[in-house]
């Protein structure tokens, strides 16, 4: 069924569950340990795998001596490229729903080393400790080749990718003549940026527990953002039917994109389970969390030209990003710069450079999180040069249509974000000149930036089962990597059928459930939420029909539109005393259960005619120690326009978490490569710095009102990504305001401030 665009009703009626700050329905399970994650499913006879990682960055394995490991009592097997079973030859068998163009990495496929820390062997033993010990007894000899892990060098051979990944749009063709306009501009800035590699590093390490059943079927518990993606991968790689592989992953301890593609521990655990006919778990260590996808290192240039009154006359944004030798990982980095501001002369350029690294991987707001800070730092630099307030400059060039396409936005309350954010922050009290807000040795600075992300929707299917006791179970094969999907879906279902929250449960993370797309890109509420709404709408219609058909009933002849569903009752709008409980309606029709399934399909036509996006305004205050270069982000206000907010409590948590990551991105996070070894070196939480509590001060989140009946039937755009986009720019701009130093290389560590 195609859900129709009918927003206001029933979502806006009084007593609606949607928009309420409902506490997480799974919160108790999580804090009591009842929630089980991939590495926590136990089964009799479970064996444990430990992965051996490559010491070199490129070359080949000459020999693997496993004798000492295999000689230990309790070691079951050591898998390498030499003894692996037959595996598919065609790339398409190794593809997954998030794979870019190219040839996916195949663990243990042959002797070739593609990147440092590549998994090259799996030890399986009766205990984890034994497997880990045995792994250390394996002696590998290599023949090393020269490697390239230096993006500046690699960028000499950069190339322009095509539409090499789902969701990726190459930059639009140039409009006007940006280079000439820049040369002739009354005022201009021209800045170079670097973005360091970041690894996702969710709290939960990647793990897979593959339970082997006597009939050869598998139950797979995997850390994934899509149980169906995991299922397809295991079936394709190991030539199994869908009937024989069930994925059950009800809880995921954060992922941020790292679970969008099946990671190698899944391959390893499935390989071992199938070969040994035993249940096997493989869990990565924290250092091994640096052995796969990451936010790619990026070099950028943003040049802006303007008239003295602030009118933008030229925008140039160029980016070169790393990818692997085997795949073209692409993300939208520069296109935003043609979309954010009105400008007649725009040239956007995006290139890839191949390096001997693992293929990069979508990480929270991929592309925008990298590209927008460059644009927004440049805008701030232009404002400084113009002697204009940065907010005024942004308003001066504000656009109500997407200049890249000429399409109007389905909704864009960015002006409201600016106004409410500035008011909450007290922006009007900012003194314009840099270094003008000193407090002792602390230089105080205020900065701002804009954030943007897409509002996307995919197809999804949801099923629902209503019992005569008024309990409702809804399900779809999505994931909940932490945003609160269980809770939001429960609210939507409860809302439409007028049921108390505790009578509704939502199921996810099971490949037996109806189809849902990967959880990523902020589209789960939009996609799966719309399916949940669709199936609940159908149950609602059915119940109304059943009630209307009861000749003796009080609702005889009424249509669904004539009814309100509340507190488990069907109530006539005309006279609230005409009512029947759901139980009464079903009993009168001799029904114990009512079941249905529905697919939600985006409003393709109206969506095609519009630009769809979430927007934000971020205001930040920093204190920079003038002597030591240390930075404290003392205040952040993030004002977000993301359509209808299903649950302001969980949504606020998402944005707050993203702001914290934005602080990390601005000041701390960097996977540092030893170029001579081609290896990330700071691969643990002691040395890969993410913000700690002491780094996090006041974070204020505002959701502005935004009506949108085009993005989806719920009018909700999703907030998974928007919270991080632009935060590093607001902080970098605040550091400029504090110090007078324009820093364009992220992260802005204290040495960069001292040496600028």
């Amino acid at each position, binding site marked *: 069924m195609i859900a129709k665009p009918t927003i206001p009703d029933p979502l806006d009626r009084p007593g609606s569950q949607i928009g309420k700050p409902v506490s997480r329905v799974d919160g108790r399970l999580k804090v009591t340990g009842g929630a089980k994650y991939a590495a926590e499913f136990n089964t009799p006879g479970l064996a444990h795998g430990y992965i051996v*990682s*490559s*010491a070199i960055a490129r070359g080949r394995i000459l020999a693997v001596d496993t004798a000492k490991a295999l000689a230990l009592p309790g070691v079951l097997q050591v898998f390498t490229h030499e003894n692996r079973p037959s595996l598919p030859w065609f790339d398409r068998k190794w593809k997954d729903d998030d794979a870019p163009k190219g040839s996916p990495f195949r663990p243990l496929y042959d002797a070739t080393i593609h990147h*440092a*820390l590549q998994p090259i062997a799996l030890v399986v033993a009766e205990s984890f*400790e034994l497997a*880990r*010990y045995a792994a*250390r007894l394996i002696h590998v000899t290599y023949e090393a080749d020269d490697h390239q892990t230096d993006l500046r060098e690699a960028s000499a051979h950069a190339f322009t990718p095509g539409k090499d990944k789902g969701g990726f749009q190459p930059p639009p063709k140039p409009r006007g003549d940006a280079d000439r306009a820049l040369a002739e501009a009354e005022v201009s800035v021209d800045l170079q940026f670097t973005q360091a590699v970041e690894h996702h590093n969710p709290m939960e390490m990647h793990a897979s527990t593959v339970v082997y059943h006597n009939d050869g079927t598998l139950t797979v518990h995997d850390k994934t953002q899509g149980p169906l993606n995991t299922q397809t991968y295991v079936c394709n790689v190991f030539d199994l039917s869908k009937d024989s592989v069930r994925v059950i992953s009800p809880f995921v301890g954060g992922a941020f994109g790292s679970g969008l593609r099946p990671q190698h521990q899944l391959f390893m655990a499935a390989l071992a389970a199938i070969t040994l006919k035993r249940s096997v778990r493989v869990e990565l260590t924290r*250092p091994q969390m640096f052995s796969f996808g990451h936010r790619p290192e990026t070099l950028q240039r943003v040049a802006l030209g303007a008239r003295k009154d602030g009118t933008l006359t030229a925008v140039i944004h160029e980016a070169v990003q790393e990818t692997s030798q085997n795949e073209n990982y692409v993300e939208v980095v520069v296109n935003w710069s043609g979309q954010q501001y009105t400008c007649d002369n725009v040239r956007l350029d995006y290139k890839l450079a191949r390096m001997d690294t693992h293929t990069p991987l979508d990480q929270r707001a991929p592309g925008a999180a990298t590209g927008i800070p460059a644009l927004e730092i440049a805008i701030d630099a232009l404002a400084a040069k113009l002697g204009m307030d940065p907010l005024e400059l942004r308003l001066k060039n504000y656009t109500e249509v997407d200049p890249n396409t000429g399409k109007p936005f389905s909704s864009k309350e960015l002006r409201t974000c600016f106004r409410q954010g500035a008011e909450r922050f007290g922006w009007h009290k900012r003194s314009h000149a840099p270094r003008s807000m000193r407090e*002792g*040795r602390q230089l105080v600075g205020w900065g701002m930036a804009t954030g943007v992300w897409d509002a996307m929707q995919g197809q999804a299917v949801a099923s629902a089962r209503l019992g005569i006791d008024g309990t409702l179970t809804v399900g779809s094969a999505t994931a909940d990597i932490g945003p609160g999907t269980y809770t939001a879906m429960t609210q939507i279902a409860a809302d439409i059928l007028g049921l108390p929250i505790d009578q509704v449960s939502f199921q996810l993370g099971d490949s037996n459930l109806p189809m849902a797309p990967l959880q990523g890109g902020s589209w789960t509420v939009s996609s799966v939420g719309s399916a949940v709404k669709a199936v609940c709408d159908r149950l609602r219609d059915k119940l109304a029909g059943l009630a209307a058909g009861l000749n003796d009933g009080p609702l005889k002849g009424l249509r669904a539109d004539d009814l309100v569903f509340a507190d488990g009752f069907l109530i006539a709008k005309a006279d609230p005393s005409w009512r029947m409980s759901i139980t009464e309606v079903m009993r009168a029709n001799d029904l114990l259960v009512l079941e249905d399934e529905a697919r939600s399909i985006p409003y393709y036509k109206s969506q095609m005619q519009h630009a769809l996006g979430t927007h934000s305004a971020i205001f930040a205050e920093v204190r920079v120690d003038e*002597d*030591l*270069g*240390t930075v*404290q982000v003392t205040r952040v206000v993030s004002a977000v326009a993301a359509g209808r907010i299903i649950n302001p409590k969980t949504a606020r948590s998402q944005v707050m978490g993203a702001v914290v990551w934005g602080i990390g991105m601005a*000041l*701390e996070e960097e996977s*540092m*490569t*030893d*170029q*001579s*070894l081609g*290896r990330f*070196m*700071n*691969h*643990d939480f*002691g*040395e890969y*710095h993410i*913000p*700690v*509590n*002491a*780094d996090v001060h006041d974070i204020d989140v505002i959701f502005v009102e935004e009506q949108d009946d085009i993005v989806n039937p719920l009018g909700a755009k999703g907030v998974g990504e928007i919270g991080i986009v632009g935060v590093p720019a607001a902080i970098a701009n605040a550091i400029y305001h504090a110090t007078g130093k324009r820093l364009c290389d992220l992260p802005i*560590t*204290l*040495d960069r401030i*001292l*040496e600028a």
Partner: protein
Amino acid sequence: MRAFSYHRPDSVDAALRGVAGQSGTTTEAAVKFVAGGTNLLDLMKADVMRPERLVDISRLGLDRIEETADGGLRLGALARNADTAHDERVQARYPMLSKAILAGASAQLRNMATNGGNLLQRTRCYYFYDTGTPCNKREPGTGCGALTGVNRIHAILGASDRCIAVHPSDMCVALAALEAVVRVSGPRGERTIPFADFHRLPGDTPHIDSNLAADELITAIDLPAEGFADHSTYLKVRDRASYAFALVSVAAALEMDGQTVRTARLALGGVAHKPWRDPAAEAELAGRPASLESFRKAARVLLRDARGQSHNAFKIGLAERAIVRALAEAAGVEHP
């Protein structure tokens, strides 16, 4: 991890019997003492340290903090870092030490970690931890990965061409400034090691961290009577506000005569293989007015031989500023 045997004696003598007969220094020993285990166990899991036997000393007592005859304080080797930092006598008489301890690790780690163990914690050099890379400290003769690699956090003073790792402790920097004395027991009876002689520079033997013998046990750390309570501080500069090792840290302690420095103690962390002290820099301060100018001068003396690597040259200027800041704070001099 590798299999090891485990023994938990209940007296110092029994503990010493557990390590009897071992030669060389404790860093190289096959039998190791374990107390809080906050560093050793991690290193064993990472296959960096491979002891054959652990002697658990957590039941030996040695966890008291007591007055000494000369008016100082004796910190039991097994007193927890947290208990030490929060001890009222330590706070009142040695505030610099309390501050240094609380600048290190996290509350959870400080609750487990012991004072003796703090002295013996090992470097956080990336290469030391990553067994897939060369490291002379971990495997002598394999080379120093940091010299040609990522060395932002590494030494600027006292390094060798074999090793540029730094000692990670905060507590030890304050202990160095206080001129604490390490008390150890061994088969040859008791002896004391002045703090400055406890840790070593890397030289040609970077695999050895300290001069503690393999058959000796730290029983206590003695603090002299002079705690510089009126004019001291500990300043730690790091990449985030908590739970990060020092890029540069400074323990600064002064005896003042009005606005003049009578004597000065200055120890630096995060810059060398051991807490760094320099008599020439301290002499430079003695008898001088407590001014930013003389602090800067002393800092330059201390850093005269500092040498940066490809990523850490910033530490030299940072150390100078940190020294000036810490001395100013200790002296109560207004920073303009």
